[in-house]
């Protein structure tokens, strides 16, 4: 489990399912392949001689850079998934994520307005789900993706029960 300097010490982080990598890969493929196709269209047209502009070097560079960036992000995905962690503490839920841009967040149970579970098509096929926590602040972008469905259900029940017990006003 990857932990960074900003994480509270001696926390037993729960990891999300390694299968979540597959979900991310599918998302990556859908987003990046489409972008790559669009970006390399000028290159094809220039090579076919249909277009005079842009010059060849530009038509090559743009998709090449996009490809490199996409591959870089692809290489990061497994590590990013490994970096996602959560921990239930006595009064709040800790969620961490990120390798380069790390974030470590604490959501008090008493502040949770509601918890919901979202399941996308790929996640459903793999038996995964995403738990989202909502507080009165939209800045609380607290989602734990890639949880196995039973664990997600357990977490939701657990959070709801704890939230109920500690519910404070706004």
């Amino acid at each position, binding site marked *: 489990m990857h932990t*960074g*300097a*900003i994480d*509270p010490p001696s926390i037993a982080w729960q990891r999300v399912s390694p299968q979540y990598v597959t979900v991310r890969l599918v998302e990556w493929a859908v987003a990046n392949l489409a972008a790559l196709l669009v970006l390399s269209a000028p290159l094809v047209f220039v090579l076919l001689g249909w277009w005079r502009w842009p010059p060849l070097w530009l038509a090559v560079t743009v998709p090449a850079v996009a490809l490199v960036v996409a591959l870089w992000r692809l290489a990061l995905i497994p590590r990013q998934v490994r970096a996602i962690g959560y921990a239930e503490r006595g*009064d*709040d839920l800790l969620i961490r994520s990120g390798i*380069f*841009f*790390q*974030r*470590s*967040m*604490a*959501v*008090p149970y*008493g*502040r949770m307005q509601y918890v919901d579970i979202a399941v996308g098509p790929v996640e459903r096929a793999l038996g995964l789900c995403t738990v989202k926590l909502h*507080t*009165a*602040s*939209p*800045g*609380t972008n*607290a989602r734990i993706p890639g949880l196995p469905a039973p664990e997600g259900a357990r977490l939701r029940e657990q959070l709801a029960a704890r939230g109920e017990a*500690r519910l*404070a*006003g*706004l």
Partner: protein
Amino acid sequence: MTAGGQLPGPHLLPSAATGPKSNATSDGEWLRVHPASPFVRGWFALAAIAFFFGRDLFERALQGQPVFEEGFARRAPWLLGGGALVLAVAVLGFVLTWYFTRYQVSGGYVRVNSGLLFRQHRQARLDRVQAIDIVQPLLARIFGLAELKFEVADAGQSAVRLAYLKIDNARQLRATILARASGAVPAAGPGTASAAGMSAPSVTGRWDPPGPALPAGPAPEAPEFAVLAVPPSRLIGSLLLSEQSFFIVVGGVASVILSALTDNRAFYLYLLPAALGLAASYWNFFNKGYNFTAAISPDGIRLRYGLLDIQAQTLPPGRIQAVKIVQPPLWRPFGWYRMQVNVAGYGTSGNAVEGNTRTILLPVGKFPEVLAMLSLVLPDPGTAQPAVVFAAGLTGRDTGGGFVTTPRRAWLLAPLAWRRNGFAATDTALLIRSGRWWRELVLVPHQRTQSMALQQGPLARWFRVADLVLHTTPGPVAPRLRQAGLDEARRLFDEQSARARLARKRQTTEQWLRQVVPAPEPTPVVEPDPVGEGEAVVEPVEILDSRMQNQQEGQRNG
């Protein structure tokens, strides 16, 4: 509720709603807004119809032609009939909308039913009222009407609006809602509300209120005491020296130079519409900020402002989620500050301009006035020397006032502001300060912290610093502590969690007058705690004590 939410009961005459002499706010009664309100609200549509039909006649009259063309007599019945039909449909629509819009205050809830074809029932819990506004647009003012608008935290969407009521009724209703929201009048807890409220109508004040007792009947308006007023001259000055003016001057100079260089006069043409837009914007600010006064009452902070359209806001105690105090560079010679707040519901409701003006706690004020407003927002500053701490937060640098700043090793990340960027924690609030030229101080009461996140990018990791973000409700204030030293940030993250937890435990209910089980403690005990790294000393100092003290003093003065 016995009258049923679906159809207007035959015994409910509209006069019950309009007459202020009838006990307009008794429990469980379904009331309607003022009969004139559809026309006040729909005057624009009526004016459009009048304009549409009148323009032709007017143009003819101007051109000296006969007002009625020949053959008019033949078409006159059709025209008149058509016009009358459109007018009748419009008026009927307004009247029906009015007839089917009814509201009720009972048992801890305000319910508003509206809609003719698509019925809408809205129900708002009174102890979740975040703010109440009384708005008087110009036309409504002429008729002595006002709109009552309140934000409720659990309504999810925008405010609950009642437009329009007679101004006295609106004030009365506001007092009733606030009295119940505060717990001064037993509004029955949400559990018992439905049963008790329905079976026994007009139970107001029947039970023995455990808190400060109020007489039965309609709740009296809470007394209020003026705190400050912003003179118009200062408002104008602040507008002239605003950031906007700065960019206007820069843009004007640039366009003059450009036109001189290129020998092209066309630039002036572009300036004209821009100037019109700017004039409108200045007018808007002036109109909204004119005659700004702030007052304090047991029901919270009262803000009043407006030249043509008057608005009176009431912010109950403890509803302010975060405060921001800013000083643009041009205001510095005058020592002016602007204060903005986050209130749940304000950030999301209505259009941008409205949301913007409603979040202003103080359009322009000097340091003593800022302190006065802060004392209203945060009655217990949680420190022995609030003036010193806040002054350090507004103008200070380095460690004065107990602030912890960005460590020297990270000065490259914020070459100008690193000595300002910092935080200080009192017993009741976290202060975050930033900005060398655009000075900014953000206050977040501990009990209002929603969630927190530590963030660190690669560059920040290299310098061993981190950002701490506090999440709050939508609004102009986005608390973010920039480039705090890693160890300090981590300690703050832990301590802040603990402080917020304790503050939440202390706050037992949303009803602010009931919040304190009145312990016989005559004076507010402010622990003379060293500012800053206090181990979150939890004295059961009731937050409201000092406010009560304020009120008592105010009553003596008033």
